[in-house]
């Protein structure tokens, strides 16, 4: 709340502070006029850059390019051979560059263009020759489905764009490009379908992307964290996916998809809490199966954050809550455990967390072994050693499994984090503490926004047709309404003192 807002402001200031520092350097390159010497000077210690002089019938030509970006075959086929044959045609096909914008020229070279310098008219031309190696389109490991399209995004911007554009062959599918990252000059594109998108959202997202000032973007998730409405919240406020069909699904609903060069995922905004539980496979399944799985996933989230805390509060504060037979069992299994239930639960939860973390860094085969060793050996051994009760092993295993149900990886991480909040509050105040934590969770979710839209859709904004595609997933024939979240106006919760 107040504290969080304060931290948020500090964060904002820090980001904008960097803006001031980096600005002057850029200015200097921009004002200088372009010449071969100037370029050579700017690219002084770049061993990668090649200056290839070619003597043609019309005079001396120098090709300037990055060797790592431009393959030899491409260079010869596209530039060298044509220039030797008909210099004029190449020049017509290439872009003519302004003579006074050195930084632009440098930019082109560093992004894989070949700059052609004609010595005679002292003129620069640029031709796109980027042909560096990139990964092929593969199946996704993280969001795999049994049915439905199997292709996924790669790290190449062009490939990703083509994957989406080939699905929506419509001139109304627009993409606006931005260059962000003061050092990395990373390309970002905002995709939307013009007649479906909410213009307010579009302004908002472009404002946010333009507003970012950050040295380098390792991945789109960094950008996502920077442009989220509430950077301090544990919840992811934009959806992130590597599946083109998911991007397409939300584009068709009027959402905005943001692509970034060198990153496999794309972000979808605005999104709601609920949509983070919905994988694309839901739409490929029969509707009843999809509904069943959806409700499992959704209620699984709440079960996973409540299960082990309930164990704590029942054992610490409310033993009368348990049925008689269960109570006897629990007393028996707890008898040898020396710690209070909170410590017991924290211990085993952390062990599970460690197992998961250790397993995820290992190669698949070793990872499996670790899972088995951890799950079975440590579990049984800990029970036999009297460190934890056997009932708890079951509960922790269930809640760990449930935490992996949300289709969004960030959401499943969040559910694990939230669980610790509940564990601690249950340890302090039992069921009352749990309810307080639950109230906190709901107030927090109610106050969250995604691109200014309420996060807890379809609860808010209220649009009845949203219910058709919520915990229920009715037959696809009925799902032809736009979601409330794509339609409503921005929702600004004005601070208390503005009321």
């Amino acid at each position: 709340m107040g504290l969080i807002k304060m931290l948020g402001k500090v964060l904002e200031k820090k980001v904008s502070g960097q803006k001031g520092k980096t600005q002057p350097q850029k200015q200097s390159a921009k004002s200088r006029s372009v010449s071969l010497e100037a370029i050579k000077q700017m690219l002084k210690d770049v061993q990668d850059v090649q200056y290839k002089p070619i003597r043609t019938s019309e005079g001396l030509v120098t090709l300037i390019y990055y060797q790592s970006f431009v393959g030899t075959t491409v260079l010869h086929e596209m530039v060298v051979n044509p220039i030797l044959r008909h210099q004029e045609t190449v020049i017509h096909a290439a872009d003519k560059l302004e003579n006074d914008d050195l930084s632009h020229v440098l930019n082109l070279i560093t992004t894989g263009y070949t700059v052609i310098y004609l010595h005679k008219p002292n003129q620069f031309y640029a031709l796109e020759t980027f042909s560096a190696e990139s990964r092929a389109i593969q199946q996704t490991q993280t969001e795999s489905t049994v049915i439905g399209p199997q292709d996924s995004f790669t790290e190449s911007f062009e490939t990703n764009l083509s994957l989406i554009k080939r699905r929506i062959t419509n001139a109304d599918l627009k993409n606006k490009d931005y260059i962000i990252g003061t050092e990395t000059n990373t390309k970002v594109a905002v995709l939307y379908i013009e007649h479906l998108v909410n213009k307010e959202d579009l302004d908002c997202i472009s404002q946010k992307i333009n507003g970012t000032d950050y040295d380098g973007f390792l991945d789109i998730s960094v950008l996502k964290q920077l442009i989220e409405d509430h950077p301090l919240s544990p919840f992811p406020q934009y959806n992130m996916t590597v599946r083109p069909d998911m991007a397409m699904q939300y584009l068709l609903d009027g959402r905005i998809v943001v692509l970034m060069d060198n990153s496999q995922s794309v972000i979808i905004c605005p999104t709601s809490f609920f949509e983070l539980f919905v994988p694309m496979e839901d739409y490929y399944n029969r509707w009843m199966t999809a509904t069943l799985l959806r409700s499992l996933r959704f209620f699984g989230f709440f079960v996973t954050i409540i299960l082990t805390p309930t164990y704590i509060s029942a054992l610490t504060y409310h033993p009368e809550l348990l049925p008689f037979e269960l109570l006897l069992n629990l007393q028996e299994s707890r008898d040898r455990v020396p710690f209070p239930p909170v410590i017991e639960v924290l211990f085993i939860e952390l062990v599970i967390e460690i197992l998961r973390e250790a397993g995820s860094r290992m190669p698949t085969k070793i990872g499996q072994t670790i899972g088995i060793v951890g799950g079975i050996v440590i579990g049984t051994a800990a029970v036999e050693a009297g460190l934890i009760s056997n009932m708890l092993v079951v509960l922790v295993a269930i809640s760990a499994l449930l935490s992996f149900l949300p289709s969004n990886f960030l959401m499943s991480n969040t559910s694990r984090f939230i669980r610790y909040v509940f564990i601690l509050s249950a340890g302090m105040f039992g069921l009352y503490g749990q309810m307080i934590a639950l109230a906190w969770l709901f107030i927090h979710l109610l106050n969250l926004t995604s691109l200014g839209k309420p996060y807890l859709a379809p609860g808010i904004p209220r649009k009845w047709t949203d219910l058709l595609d919520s915990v229920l997933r009715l037959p696809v024939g009925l799902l032809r309404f736009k979601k409330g979240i794509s339609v409503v106006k921005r929702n600004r919760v004005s601070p208390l003192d503005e009321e």
Partner: protein
Amino acid sequence: MNIRIIWLISCSLLLMGCASELKPSAVEDVALVSLIGIDYVDEEDMKVTLAIPQFSSSTEQTNQIYTTQAGMIKEAIVDLSSQADKEIKLNGLRVVLFNEEFATSGKMWEVVEHLYRNPVIGGNVFVVIVKDTAEGLLNGDYPDKPSIVTYMNALLKPKPHIMFSPFTTIHNFMYAHSNPVVDIMVPYLEHKESIVELSGIALFKHDKMEEVYSREEGQIIQMLSGVRKIPAATIPLSSNGEEREEVVIDFLNTEVDYSSNKDVDHPVLDITIKLKGSIYEYRGEKDLSKSSEYSKMEEEVRKFTEEQVEVIIDDLKEKGIDPVGLTENFRMYHHGEWTEEMDQRVLENMEYNLKVEMQILATGTLR
């Protein structure tokens, strides 16, 4: 900004407070009393016996039993805490046993009220009366049962064949005690060597236990109270000479309907009992495949039941006990306060017209 700093400081202070307050007392550190037995000593004192289930497999005994003499329950618990290895708590109480002497002394409701007022005690705590001493029952040896706690718990779970018993909880007890219309009835247990038997029901008049009814009589009272499913009953049809004719009827559904003439001074109550049942066992001469003999038997069973119900109601009227709440049918039309005396008067003066309808649906799967 200042306010936020204050926030920060107060939050951290708060967390420090938590650290000192987090005194864990987990479930294995408390002794949850499951059964309390109360025996009569004299006017002032009672003997309190607590049974606590023992979960640990390291000891031979499956439960701990503590006994002391005290004037009040709380006093007894404080007293016994000095002997117990764990903190004694009443949160998990299931059954309170009173011995017959205590019940007839008229002090029983005070103890039940004390338990009823205690917020940590649940509502579904059963009250039972034990023939001899509760202490003896709790200390008894039951070699084929896991422990007395689980035994009592399982015994007092409503099951089809023991529905003659009312399964009175502390709420029901206080309800009947405080309601002038109804009198208390409580299951009556007998301790026989290595078993405990639900042998009947104990009826109260005001505060004191007055009468013990047998299982069959209890069944009729349950039937009058509107319990829909009552256990099977053996009905002797004719017992002339050596040849006994008997039938066991499984009652599928019973319904009871009252209508009063709304007159407190000359009370008349119409009672209609509708019984549906099927024949479980039959020993006799009748050929049940013939519909005439079948309906004859139906009539005989009806008549027998009617007689039995009449006997019970007459007996209750004579003794002035009303565990069914027959007078409720007059109270609901009466304006003004309904007092204990009025209730007694109405019960004494009440005339009733009994009508029993019997329907035997089938003779089972075999002819």
